[in-house]
């Protein structure tokens, strides 16, 4: 029934507000949800364990009487801790004082090294104006060299390749000489995918590292990696001491808990994110966004921040009273509309409107232009009309339509929808949850 952690937490902690404090039982219940959410996001079991114990401690001392409800309060604490764990700032590659800067790419088979190599090249060429060369050191996977030549060519990078007969260590050394000779700013060394437990191939990687003395070693990690991310990261860290991580395939729907696990066990920052099939779908990594993605609560958090600034508890209570007594007027509607719009796109806020929490509004699509129109129509009404919509007939309708630059149909529609909404509020006030979408459709 509940999709996101924040919804789950709010359901779990729904009765806390009336009691005023979070008991240990409440916190334990919340921690169970957090633990499950993190595990579903593939955060490593051990990382989850230590994380929840930190969060638990903070929650036990938390004040739950503020402007946020207890569920939101806990979400906020989780987010703060998660962001802290992910590392606040986004790190990037170091450039060598004497070019070429050498970047060594490492990772498991199929993690997306070759594509990432070309994407990184493109990024450095466009963002840093660097001249970039690529070294084709994957001599094992059939046609890997061809692939690098092709994608390298597509982004306009020079590709140094010597086929698949030579030793990758020699190719790397040779490519470095070529890069120096050609005066390249950056050389990115693509290597074969290898298992972290394959001693022979890990040894080869160490040799390549020694041969080219990279400025930065990047570990490419598939965003969909599960619990094993920790083993992989630890082994690669032990062998080649990577400096940062490049998360690939972040355009899917994986929560990407591996990012957190890798950061937690190695302390190395996630530097880049590869976010699509196209070679320009590549960006600096944003730790804070990742924290939110892992818990699937992106927009909710920005709402919380904004709500803290915008929503006045008393005003909300007054509104609730009006709703229940069916005194809700176009004037209230307008002020609500304005307040909400100050907070950003309505789509992401809908589920969080006081009285509307939960799933009922989740699937409603909001057209922001429609809201502009609604505002204009209400603003064209007289104060009396706003309080008594039943007056809006005949010439008043025409006047409002002209004044707002809309049509009589639009005015009719809004008045009708408003009537529906009042009915709905009345039902909500009685504690019933009507089929909102059906009502909205009816209103049109």
């Amino acid at each position, binding site marked *: 029934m509940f999709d996101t952690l924040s919804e789950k937490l709010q359901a779990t902690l729904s009765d806390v507000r009336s009691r005023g404090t979070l008991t240990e039982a409440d916190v334990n219940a919340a921690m169970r949800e957090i633990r*499950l959410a993190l*595990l*579903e*996001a*593939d955060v*490593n*079991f051990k990382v989850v364990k230590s994380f929840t114990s930190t969060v638990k401690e903070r929650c036990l001392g938390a004040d739950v009487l503020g402007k946020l409800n207890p569920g939101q309060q806990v979400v906020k604490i989780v987010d703060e801790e998660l962001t802290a764990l992910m590392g606040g700032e986004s790190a990037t590659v170091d450039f060598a004082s004497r070019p070429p800067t050498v970047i060594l790419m490492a990772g*498991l*088979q*199929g*993690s*997306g090294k070759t594509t990432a190599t070309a994407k990184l090249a493109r990024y450095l060429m466009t963002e840093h104006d660097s001249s970039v060369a690529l070294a084709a050191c994957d001599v094992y*996977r*059939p*046609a*890997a060299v*061809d*692939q690098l030549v*092709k*994608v390298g060519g*597509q982004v306009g990078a020079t590709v140094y390749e010597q086929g698949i007969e030579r030793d990758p260590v020699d190719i790397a050394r040779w490519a470095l000489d070529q890069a120096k000779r050609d005066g390249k700013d950056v050389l990115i060394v693509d290597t074969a995918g290898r*298992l*972290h*437990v394959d001693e022979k191939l890990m040894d080869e990687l160490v040799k390549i590292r020694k041969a080219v003395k990279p400025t930065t070693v990047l570990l490419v990690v*598939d965003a*969909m*990696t*599960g*619990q*094993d*991310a920790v*083993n*992989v990261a630890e082994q690669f860290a032990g062998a080649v001491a990577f400096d940062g991580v490049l998360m690939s*395939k972040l*355009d*899917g*729907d*994986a*929560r990407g*808990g*591996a990012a957190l696990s890798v950061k937690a066990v190695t302390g190395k920052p996630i530097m880049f994110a590869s976010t699509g*099939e196209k070679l320009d779908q590549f960006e600096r990594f944003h730790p804070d966004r990742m924290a939110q993605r892992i818990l699937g609560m992106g927009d909710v958090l920005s709402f919380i921040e904004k709500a803290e600034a915008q929503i006045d508890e008393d005003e909300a209570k007054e509104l609730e009273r009006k709703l229940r007594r069916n005194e809700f007027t176009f004037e209230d509607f307008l002020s609500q509309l304005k307040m909400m719009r100050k907070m950003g796109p309505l789509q992401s806020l809908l589920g969080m409107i006081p009285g509307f929490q939960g799933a009922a509004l989740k699937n409603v699509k909001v057209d922001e232009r429609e809201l502009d129109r609604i505002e204009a129509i209400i603003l064209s009404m007289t104060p009396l009309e706003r309080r008594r919509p039943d007056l809006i007939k005949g010439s008043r309708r025409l006047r409002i339509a002209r004044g707002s630059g809309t049509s009589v149909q639009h005015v009719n529609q809004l008045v009708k929808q408003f009537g529906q909404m009042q009915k709905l509020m009345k039902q909500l006030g009685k504690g019933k949850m009507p089929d909102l979408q059906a009502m909205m459709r009816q209103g049109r």
Partner: protein
Amino acid sequence: MARDWSDLFITDGARPATIGDGASLADEPERRRGFFKRLRTNLSKTREALGAEIQATLLEGDVDEDTWERLEEALIMADVGAATTARVVGELESEAAGGAISGGEALSRRLAGMLAEIARTGEDRIDLRHAPTVIMAVGVNGTGKTTTIGKLAWHLQHELGLKVVLGAADTFRAAAVQQLEGWARRAGCEIVSGPEGSDPGSVAFEAVRQGRELGADVVIVDTAGRLHTQDDLMAELAKVRRVIAKQIDDAPHETLLTVDATTGQNGLRQAKLFSEAVPVDGIVLTKLDGTAKGGIALAIAGELGIAVKLIGIGEALEDLRPFDADDYAQALLT
């Protein structure tokens, strides 16, 4: 005893089942020994971490609250997922409480049995009695589709003596065709390809057409890796399937989804969304030779009822193997 290729495939008896080229027949005993040794070493790597933990928890001391917690941990660490883990441990716990099983050894035997039961779902064989049988390989980028197809083609040609035609319908990834061509050469089979960026549907169509013309037994169609969230690419996959069906009514007869054993809970989403686009008949669980245990395959089998049919346990040709539920459960636990 592990399942063998002949257990995996349904063939009509008339077909020469295990006659390959003369050399491989003569080498048979030698190769089989080599294989078992390889399987043992590969699986023991897989076993190591999880096995040690479970043995310590289940086989020593009394069964108490800690036992369940640590068992839970072990399954989660194997990527089995919270839901399936909770179900398995809960069931085991109630059986133990009811007195049906007692003692660490019985418990771990029962656990292995339960895991194998979950893994053993639906039709776990591949029916090759069509002429030709069309197999389509689908999956997320980097899961090992092309490698799996190459090895599968080799096995079909050499172990089952079947005539295979490959269709290189991954027209998107740079050099994907060359990669498959490399495999076709090794396996000694025909390959049909089109220019890079061309319509994958037309390549698939042509491959099946040529397969029929050449009297092939099996046509295997490779497709480009794609994330299950890319609606347009998933629609393209459905189209490739429809195009194949234009050649042979009930084809493709077998759609295999490759899942990387390293994959976490997202694997379930992959299997779900791929099955929505094209009916998936089986899972190929690849890269089991690392430290990842591929527990997501259990979750997929348990929740979606899709059987694992093949596993990849290494780089070598013999490292593509028919999946055996009991072996797999044992590998997780011993």
